[in-house]
């Protein structure tokens, strides 16, 4: 997969007359787009993923105003090779070790961004590219677990990229300076604590503290120049401010499970909240020395992560007592399973490939969570069992992201309604269920938003009562019991008419089953032959929950088909919700089921 990428990149270095581009940054943006597509094909991309940070940094670099286009060797070949790799992975080519492939991708991206940075003359654009390079450098040389501060800092970097075109607006400069002041205070507290505990060398900690204070002074100077009363905000400013506000709030929210070491490491990796970029944005001359020094000190840590020693709380002793901290909002340690936060912005449009990748991650996660290590289903066979817990986490993340991509529908549909909060809660629950049920092989991955939309509409139709409980809607009065007083009890032995009726019913049933799509007919026939759901799932190579759902759908379709033939739709007890049934039928009639691939093997039983 990487051969073509390597070959194309080598050409940029050695080709005597390489194809040139007049605008390196445009080329680089396309390349980053392909890198992101490839990363997405490997699985869900959390906001603090190094490739996501690289994408944000590139966006920031591209938004730097008044940068002259750069003439350089074109990255078009590399871009094409990466796009092809992404296409192949998305198409389902076998990726044995996704973790390994991700590590390779980080290395490739690191080398590429370094090359682009070296070819970029503008210092401000260089600083942005350096931010992406540092994120990849950290991920390669000192990989760390995902942390709350890491997510907050990723949001902060994204906010800085968003404010880039408006950074001369007073209201934006004020917000950036205030937000960064909060981050500096947090960094100061963490570094003081680390110094006290002996986690950082004293000289290093003192240098950091000096420069943090210096930069805070520069921010104060910036704030003094702005008269807050005269600030007006356009709609664009407000959208940008919202990004800054959300990022600041995320950074000031503390996670009880996060260690001081992880928190400080996150701050150092972010080069103290991209101090150099903030310095460029607020344009305060007195900030320059401090921002550059902080950037250098943070790079020193990235190059040598052992600078920050991990110390257990008990090791601190009296001298190592942490600096008393203010009661920040503490999020209790998450219950098991931990709640997963979406890694995408709510309402992000997922294309078909992304939905497919999310569904695959979901199925892998479900399979990994429920397997017997001695007899794993085919889906997770060949994957190292030590990676199964990670698959479970990725599966949950995928489901959360699927829901996050459509959650604005719930808000749009409930705005201004009575019991809106309860309705939204119920919609969220239903959407989670839908995200687990959705099968792209039957419905088509690009139709996930429509599937979610029908779920939302159905929940809205059912509604909730004043206590927030879902209403039970029944299409009409249930049939009343017929008194048997005047009748003789029927014989238990079948008469001739009963036998004929039974034969007709079997014939109808067989015809209805024949009409089912292959993906549903197979499991139903196996079930009719007496196979358990587990066996059906193992034979077909998908999860037990998928088998159960397909059986359920098959039975519903058969029931509806027979009811239609008999001209008596209400002749059968409707177990599932009639609106959902109708919506599902309409949906499948409108778009037609996509025939699922045949199972790889199905031994006769």
């Amino acid at each position, binding site marked *: 997969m990487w051969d073509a990428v390597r070959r194309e990149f080598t050409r940029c270095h050695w080709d005597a007359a390489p194809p040139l581009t007049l605008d390196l940054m445009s080329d680089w943006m396309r390349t980053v787009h392909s890198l992101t597509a490839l990363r997405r094909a490997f699985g869900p991309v959390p906001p603090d993923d190094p490739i996501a940070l690289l994408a944000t940094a590139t966006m920031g670099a591209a938004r730097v105003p008044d940068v002259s286009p750069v003439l350089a060797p074109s990255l078009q070949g590399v871009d094409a090779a990466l796009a092809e790799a992404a296409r192949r992975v998305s198409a389902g080519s076998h990726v044995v070790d996704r973790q390994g492939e991700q590590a390779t991708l980080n290395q490739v991206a690191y080398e590429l961004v370094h090359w682009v940075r070296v070819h970029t003359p503008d210092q401000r654009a260089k600083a942005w590219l350096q931010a992406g390079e540092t994120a990849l450098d950290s991920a390669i040389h000192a990989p760390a677990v995902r942390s709350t501060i890491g997510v907050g800092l990723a949001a902060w970097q994204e906010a800085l990229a968003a404010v880039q075109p408006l950074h001369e607006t007073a209201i934006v400069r004020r917000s950036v300076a205030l937000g960064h002041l*909060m981050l500096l*205070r947090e960094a100061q507290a963490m570094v003081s604590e680390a110094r006290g505990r002996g986690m950082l060398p004293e000289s290093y900690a003192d240098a950091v503290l000096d420069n943090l204070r210096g930069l805070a002074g520069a921010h104060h100077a910036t704030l003094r120049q702005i008269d807050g009363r005269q600030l007006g905000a356009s709609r664009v400013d407000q959208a940008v401010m919202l990004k800054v506000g959300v990022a600041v709030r995320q950074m*000031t929210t503390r996670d009880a499970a996060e260690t001081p070491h992880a928190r400080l490491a996150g701050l150092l990796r972010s080069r103290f909240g991209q101090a150099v970029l903030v310095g460029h944005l607020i344009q305060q001359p007195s900030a320059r020395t401090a921002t550059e020094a902080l950037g250098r000190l943070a790079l020193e840590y990235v190059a040598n992560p052992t600078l920050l020693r991990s110390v257990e709380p008990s090791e601190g002793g009296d001298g190592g007592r942490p600096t008393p*901290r203010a*009661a920040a*909002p503490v999020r209790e340690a998450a219950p098991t399973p931990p709640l997963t936060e979406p890694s995408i912005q709510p309402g992000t449009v997922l294309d078909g490939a992304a939905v497919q990748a999310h569904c695959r991650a979901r199925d892998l996660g479900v399979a990994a969570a429920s397997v017997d290590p001695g007899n794993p289903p085919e889906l997770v066979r060949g994957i190292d069992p030590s990676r199964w817990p990670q698959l479970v986490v990725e599966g949950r993340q995928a489901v959360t992201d699927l829901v996050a991509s459509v959650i604005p529908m719930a808000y749009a549909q409930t705005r201004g309604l009575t019991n809106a909060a309860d309705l939204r809660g119920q919609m969220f629950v239903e959407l989670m269920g839908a995200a687990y049920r959705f099968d792209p092989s039957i419905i088509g991955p690009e139709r996930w938003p429509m599937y979610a939309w029908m779920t939302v509409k159905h929940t809205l139709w059912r509604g909730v009562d004043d206590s927030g409980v879902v209403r039970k809607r029944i299409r009409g009065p249930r049939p009343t019991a017929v008194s048997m007083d005047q009748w003789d009890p029927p014989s238990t032995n079948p008469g001739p008419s009963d036998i004929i009726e039974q034969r007709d019913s079997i014939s109808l049933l067989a015809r209805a089953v024949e009409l089912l799509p292959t993906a549903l007919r197979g499991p139903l026939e196996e079930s009719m032959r007496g196979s358990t759901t587990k066996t059906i799932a193992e034979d077909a190579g998908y999860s037990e929950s998928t088998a159960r759902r397909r059986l359920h759908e098959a039975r519903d379709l058969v029931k509806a088909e027979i009811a239609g033939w008999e001209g008596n739709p209400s002749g059968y007890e409707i177990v599932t919700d009639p609106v959902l049934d109708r919506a599902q039928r309409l949906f499948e009639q409108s778009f037609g089921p996509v025939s699922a691939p045949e199972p790889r093997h199905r031994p006769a039983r």
Partner: protein
Amino acid sequence: MTARPMPTDSIAKVDLLLGQAILLGTDDWNDTTANLHEAMGIALLMAAQHPTGEPVDLPEPNQLSVLGCVEDALREVQNWDLALAADLPDLARLRVLLTDTRRDLLVANASQG
């Protein structure tokens, strides 16, 4: 149920007052400053979520002390309808932070004589 009006002008005022308090604060980053910064973070987000179209009427903020800014901000916040908590999830946290900050500042002022 009718929607409660959002006190956008008041939110902007709180944002401005807390920004001023931070500006007036010294480089001495202690627990009080930590609370003040966190409150500022909440106010910044609230102001971005519920912007006002009008300039904020704040008489001579340069004549206020840190304590004065915090007290004025607390007064504003305490005037808000508590039922707004449904729309402002950090409302309670903001009230607590401002109350704590005010108390800490009062104690600090008293100990300085």
